[in-house]
């Protein structure tokens, strides 16, 4: 399958920069310290998962990267530019699909294109290609309520990618799905990502999901969040679901689980 978009030609100076850099970020919600001190660098086209207990501040961190929330201290920058608000280089996938019920799937996917005032006509073929890749192109003209939960979430991934953002932020995108659909979606996501290389920051509760998808897994500790462990997942790509049977894969899963248990202190 032809890739939907070639990675844009970047000047060497930008290519050398981390796609995302989070430096000594702290976040207070009034009195409550949600994030104590997080520093994180994500390389261009790297797939990084954030793993951590509920309420540790993963969504908070992602929201700050998306420019919807201001950190209390520290700096976040994308391709070397500090984040001061939402920007077009960001694509976001939420826990729920959040599709507009009155728009067809195609029009939902084109929503960011419309909001960014990009030429719609030029993006329709791209949107259709993404839908085909997500195997829901037959539903381009359907309304969201005619799709299953998994199909809707795939549409929302297409929406996040349609304007060709440099960074894809995903906040537990598969947690509302059943286990079988969830595994399948992981494989689908990797397939789309393979053809459409992006920097991805993926938040999850699932150790296996993190290990399966990522180049690197970042483990966050209990609130107030710090990073307690980083692990590079050195497994070949493209990855198939059979990888989860692999002993190397399971070694990573065990190591991650141990790291999490050590930090959370059960």
């Amino acid at each position: 399958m032809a890739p939907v978009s070639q990675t844009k030609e970047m000047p060497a100076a930008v290519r050398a920069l981390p796609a995302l850099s989070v430096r000594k970020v702290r976040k207070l919600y009034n009195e409550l310290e949600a994030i104590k001190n997080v520093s994180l660098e994500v390389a261009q086209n790297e797939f990084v998962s954030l793993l951590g207990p509920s309420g540790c501040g993963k969504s908070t961190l992602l929201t700050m990267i998306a420019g919807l929330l201001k950190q209390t201290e520290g700096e976040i920058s994308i391709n070397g530019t500090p984040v001061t608000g939402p920007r077009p280089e960001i694509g976001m996938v939420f826990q729920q699909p959040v599709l507009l019920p009155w728009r067809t799937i195609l029009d939902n996917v084109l929503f960011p294109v419309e909001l960014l005032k990009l030429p719609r006509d030029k993006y329709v073929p791209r949107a259709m290609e993404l839908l085909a890749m997500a195997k829901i192109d037959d539903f381009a003209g359907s309304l969201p309520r005619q799709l299953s939960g998994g199909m809707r979430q795939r549409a929302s991934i297409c929406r996040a990618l349609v304007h060709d953002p440099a960074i894809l932020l995903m906040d537990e995108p598969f947690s509302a799905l059943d286990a079988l659909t969830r595994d399948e979606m992981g494989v689908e996501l990797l397939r789309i990502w393979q053809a459409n290389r992006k920097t991805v920051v993926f938040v999850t509760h699932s150790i296996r999901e993190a290990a399966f998808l990522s180049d690197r897994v970042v483990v966050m500790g209990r609130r107030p969040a710090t990073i307690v462990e980083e692990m590079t997942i050195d497994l070949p790509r493209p990855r198939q679901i059979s990888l989860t049977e692999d002993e190397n894969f399971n070694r990573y899963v065990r190591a991650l689980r141990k790291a999490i248990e050590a930090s959370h202190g059960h």
Partner: protein
Amino acid sequence: MGTKGRRFAADIAGPAAISIGMIVLWEVIVRALHIRSIILPPPSEIIMAMVDRRDLLLTHLWPSLYLTVLGFALSVVGGVAVAILITYSAALRKGFYPIIIVSQVIPKISIAPLFIVWFGTGTMSSLLLAFLIAFFPMTINSALGFQSIDEDIARMARTFMASDWQVFWKIRMPNALPYIFSGMKISITLAIIGVIVSEFVASQEGIGYLIKLAGGLLDTPLMMAAITVLSIAGLILYGLIAHFERRVVYWQSSSDISGSGGG
């Protein structure tokens, strides 16, 4: 095809059969018990009155219908406009809500005589009363529609850099449409009540006036014919709104039913 036939049976044939049955029963009881037609005319007599006096009925129907539709239209435009204003201005919202709440408590038709004092015994009073009582449900429903934006949708739009203008046209407006239509369905009924009551109180024309006149003449068949004509007109207006609603709010659950029928 089969499901369609069954749906026809459930939606139309069933209720129609029950209505016809009740009308027949009414006819039979009135005749069997020799109830005088001043008290309760049989349906056949009402229908005859409708046919015989159709010119009179229509003469009085048109002004009522005209004022109802006009008052209703004004209430829709005004209600949606005020709803948008109070959605975007906290100060207006604070100013308007007490008025809206008080207006919910006051039986608005009780001020009909006051309107007559202010605006005279003419179309102006009827129009204003229709507008006034249709206006508040329109405003409340629309405001709810503009304001009840799903938080996730709002966040999604902000992530993709939607401007306030885009949020209004692409999210708030479509979100409000189902609410606006439920407001319209309430308001059309209230606009009819407003016009009829105001015609009861003081008017020389209109279906309300005719009902009162027939009552005074003890012409019960004419009175019931007028009520029937009014009910039919009301049903048609309501049906038109429901029809537009299905087309405009095509993503809503009413079509869910037809969607599942196809499976």
